[in-house]
């Protein structure tokens, strides 16, 4: 009987951490979709080849030979080692293991009375932010954040200075893994300032009505402040243990400057991961819709935890919220630590609540709510992971795999112009014979250089002189994710210097005509369209979502290149809303206003708030000269989404038109 009870108690307690570890692992299971990992792998491979660290950039054209404070070198060597042993699958699995390990570390740090809240909260946060859990050094940062939090919380409870000893040592690792190493000393510093403030002002009423006072006398608080101050100082000193000296130490400040929001800051305004989350939500709501709700829930959590909230925790939350508001890449840091902090502060209140509702209906509801939330979250994480393609290859549509194969088959070497986020992949596949013009190590580039690069996408005619100066052997561009390069693709398709050597509809490879004997691909040929569709069907093994996305990409490329009949052929028979919307636009582009209107009206019948259809009907009306009717559609469209880019552009065009006439 006793054994049975013990087992029940154990299982009653154990299911939470097990669910957390499994959930964190599954939530982060996704194929590689971010290009940075490939230049990390290339750097690891190069260091192994040279038996030396890299101090200058060997990989790209635009930063060749420039000093490179490669603070990630330790991560790069480790990642390359994992890849060499087990490929991309191994990298993803190790990443997921690290996330699960970090989650369990946080679990250990949280006051046990708050764990029933912490587990579902962190799981939900991880599932919502799963696209931010990339195979990048930030994963190591998450684990180190958890370890620092664990040691600092244990030190707060157990008051043993030896618990602080590992922190400077961990700082040495952190400094050689990622530029976010500054968070380590900052974290200890937050606790040190909290203890110091308690020692200095803890007896004052103003302090006591503002923050929870840590237990113990003023003398004890002062001793804690001293010990934490020493740990902070040692962690700062540990940050100097880097082969890259002052350049590595300055990196956090340089990175901070680059994510400081402002229209004049091209790195904040144009780099997808640096865009402030509320700005990103306007153009890509699916990625970050949850951030405002997270902040609102965090506010509720703080109110509920008000009596127990310590100054150190407030500092940490404040810093993480500010970092998150500056750039969406930092949202992962907030989602990671905030549940642990709030659960810790709420722990005594939760225990009291549990006692007060024991044996009541409320108590039963509370006992059901936690496992129900965890189960639902696990199910969602499982569905998300199951919807992903395999882990052995990069995520589809994100990397120019076939283009890289074809460039690799060329003789000799040269320079390649590509989208910056694909530069890392090309380095990994083609270095040293071919080097991309740019990649995402933007710290090697000035704002003026990056602006010049972006202008080639936004004003393609500027590319002509530039490409002649560089004599690029190849140009590799994506059709979607993002679609910023469509104008440049159209420009190169019409260029006399380049030939379309390859496309599958999602990636595009242009090769310089001279020295390349083939006539290139003709997307106006129905046989080409049929072949590409067959190849997509075969590649994605009947996965309807991926096949549909591949066809929409191909049809988009056809429209951009003026091959309207082929676009219609690709979209024929497709009933998905995206495909129907594109079909309507194909008809519009062909001048078939009635056909476009019919499709748009049908889409509106299905969904009266379909912004795409409303914009389309506004455009049809404008082209017929029915501007007031067009304005009516725009009114509805902008009422649904006041930030819709197409509707805003239409409105601006109509205003200008009215002004001119």
């Amino acid at each position, binding site marked *: 009987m006793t054994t049975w009870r013990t087992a029940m108690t154990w299982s009653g307690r154990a299911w939470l951490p097990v669910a957390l570890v499994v959930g964190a692992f599954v939530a982060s299971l996704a*194929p590689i*979709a*971010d*290009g*940075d990992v490939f230049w990390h792998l290339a750097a690891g491979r190069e260091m192994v080849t040279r038996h030396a660290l890299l101090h200058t950039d060997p990989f790209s054209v635009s930063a060749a030979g420039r000093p490179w404070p490669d603070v990630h070198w330790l991560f790069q060597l480790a990642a390359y080692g994992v890849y060499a042993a087990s490929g991309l699958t191994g990298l993803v699995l190790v990443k997921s293991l690290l996330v699960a390990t970090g989650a369990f570390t946080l679990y250990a740090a949280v006051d046990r009375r708050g764990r029933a809240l912490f587990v579902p909260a962190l799981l939900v946060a991880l599932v919502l932010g799963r*696209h931010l859990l990339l195979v990048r050094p930030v994963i190591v940062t998450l684990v180190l954040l958890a370890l620092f939090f664990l040691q600092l919380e244990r030190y707060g409870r157990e008051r043993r200075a030896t618990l602080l000893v590992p922190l400077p040592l961990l700082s040495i690792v952190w400094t050689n893994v990622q530029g976010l190493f500054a968070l380590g000393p900052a974290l200890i510093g937050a606790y040190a300032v909290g203890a110091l403030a308690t020692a200095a002002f803890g007896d*004052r*009423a103003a302090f006591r*009505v503002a923050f*929870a*006072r840590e237990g113990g006398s003023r003398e004890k608080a002062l001793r804690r402040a001293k010990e934490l101050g020493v740990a902070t100082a040692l962690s700062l000193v540990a940050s100097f243990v880097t082969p890259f000296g002052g350049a590595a130490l300055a990196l956090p400040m340089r990175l901070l400057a680059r994510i400081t*929001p*402002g229209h*004049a*800051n091209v790195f904040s305004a*144009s780099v*997808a991961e640096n*865009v402030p989350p509320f700005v990103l*939500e306007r153009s*890509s709501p*699916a*990625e970050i819709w949850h951030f405002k709700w997270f902040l609102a829930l965090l*506010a509720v959590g*703080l109110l509920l935890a*008000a*009596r127990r*909230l310590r100054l150190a925790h*407030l500092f940490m939350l404040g810093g993480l919220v500010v970092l998150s508001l500056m750039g969406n890449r930092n949202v992962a840091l907030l989602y990671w630590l905030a549940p642990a902090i709030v659960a810790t502060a709420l722990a005594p209140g939760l225990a009291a609540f549990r006692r007060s509702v024991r044996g009541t209906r409320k108590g039963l509801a509370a006992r059901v709510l936690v496992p129900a939330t965890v189960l639902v979250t696990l199910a*969602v994480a499982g*569905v998300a992971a199951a*919807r*992903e393609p395999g882990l052995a290859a990069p*995520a589809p*549509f*994100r990397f120019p795999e076939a283009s890289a194969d074809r460039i690799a088959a060329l003789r000799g070497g040269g320079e390649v112009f590509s989208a*910056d*986020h694909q530069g890392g992949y090309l380095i990994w596949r083609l270095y040293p014979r071919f080097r991309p013009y740019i990649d995402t190590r933007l710290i090697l580039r000035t704002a003026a250089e990056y602006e010049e690069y972006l202008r080639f996408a936004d004003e393609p005619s500027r590319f002509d002189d530039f490409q002649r100066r560089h004599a690029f052997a190849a140009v590799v561009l994506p059709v979607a994710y*993002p*679609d*910023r390069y469509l104008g440049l693709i159209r420009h190169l398709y019409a260029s006399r210097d380049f030939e379309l050597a390859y496309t599958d509809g999602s990636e595009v490879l242009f090769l310089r005509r001279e020295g390349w004997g083939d006539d290139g691909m003709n997307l106006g040929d129905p046989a080409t369209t049929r072949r590409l569709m067959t190849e997509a069907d075969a590649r994605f093994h009947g996965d309807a979502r991926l096949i549909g996305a591949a066809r929409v990409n191909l049809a988009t490329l056809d*429209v*951009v290149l003026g091959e309207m009949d082929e676009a219609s052929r690709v979209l024929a028979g497709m009933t998905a*809303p995206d495909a129907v*919307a594109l079909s309507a*636009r194909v008809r*519009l582009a062909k001048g078939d206003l009635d056909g476009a209107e019919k499709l748009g009206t049908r889409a509106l019948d299905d969904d009266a708030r379909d912004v795409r259809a409303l914009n389309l009907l506004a*455009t049809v009306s*404008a082209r*017929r*000269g029915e*501007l007031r009717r067009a304005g009516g559609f*725009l*009114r509805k469209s902008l009422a649904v989404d006041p*930030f819709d880019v*197409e509707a805003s552009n239409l409105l601006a*065009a*109509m*205003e200008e*038109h*009215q002004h001119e006439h």
Partner: protein
Amino acid sequence: MTSPPNQSSGESARYGAFVAATLLAAAALYPAAAEYRAAEQNRERLQTLDDALARQKQRPAPLDPGTALRVTRLGPLLSSWETVGGCGAGSTGGTGVVKWIGRNTTGGLFQSISQFNYIHFGNGYNLVATEQVSRDITEHWNVGVFVPYVYKWYDNYYNLSPPIDLSNSGIGDINVLGTFRFGSINENSLTAAIGIPTGTSHATYKGDPLTQEKQLGIGTVTGSLMLDHTMDETWGLIVLGGLAAWRGGENKYGNFRAPTASLYGYGGYFVGPFVPALGVSFSGFTKPDRDRGDEQDVPLLVMAGNASVEWSNDLVAVLLGVSLPYGLLGKKDTIEQRPGSQTVTGFQPWTLAVGVSVSPF
């Protein structure tokens, strides 16, 4: 209203968390507010366009505005290949003593200036948190409201042993502001403020009223008029101005706060996003303040040196400043002082201020 520390009920209130929660809630509401603002602007533009089209007698010429090809609409649960995330191209007027000199922030739906002032006395301190919200209603007119929250702390208030410390806190006098800007480039501004007596003027400790400077208000209507002239140079800014203030006169308890007038000048220098500034002000009082009919030992002419640095970008401006006043003239220059308290002439309580200005939406 008064609360010696050993009697304050600190366990039931933690305003640090409340402030943080309020800020988080405001941030969470930002998208909705920005959306509302954008919707309003769109509505106005569409109405203007529609009115113009309605007035047009002939049929408008057709327009070919081009078509967007981004048709994909994603659900909330994204696959790895559906995100555009990762690295790569994706598609005052001052409040309190320390004055905002630099770029500040303007142009939004409204302007919010939050400022936290720490005023240090020899025998205590005041914490004054102020929130000023204002909005341009035309090119020349701006209206706003200014709400101070005051926390006053004094050590050993009665000079007894054991000492009794004392605090007084609450909302101070709320001011309603109106500003008229004029000149060829609106380089002049005249700001009128009316103070509503919302701050308590009769706080007591064990039945004994606190002296008038420890009250949160005077209990009567106050008012001020401020004139600023800004010289906008390529290298920075110069602000010259003056202020006349009616500080409430005498109330029914015999407390009196004297009228005052100030002249000031500030210069700020542009260093990238930073604007360091230095300034000086002279303030004169018509007569000493009185507490229950007794004249207080306060300076009648004060010079203050001010130093601040402001950092700003498109969204937010942050100010860190300090003000160090010096009493030049008083009715008595030596008085019987308690240890640690100020003298009439010489250095007066200094102020450290941190401010955040945003002009959202």
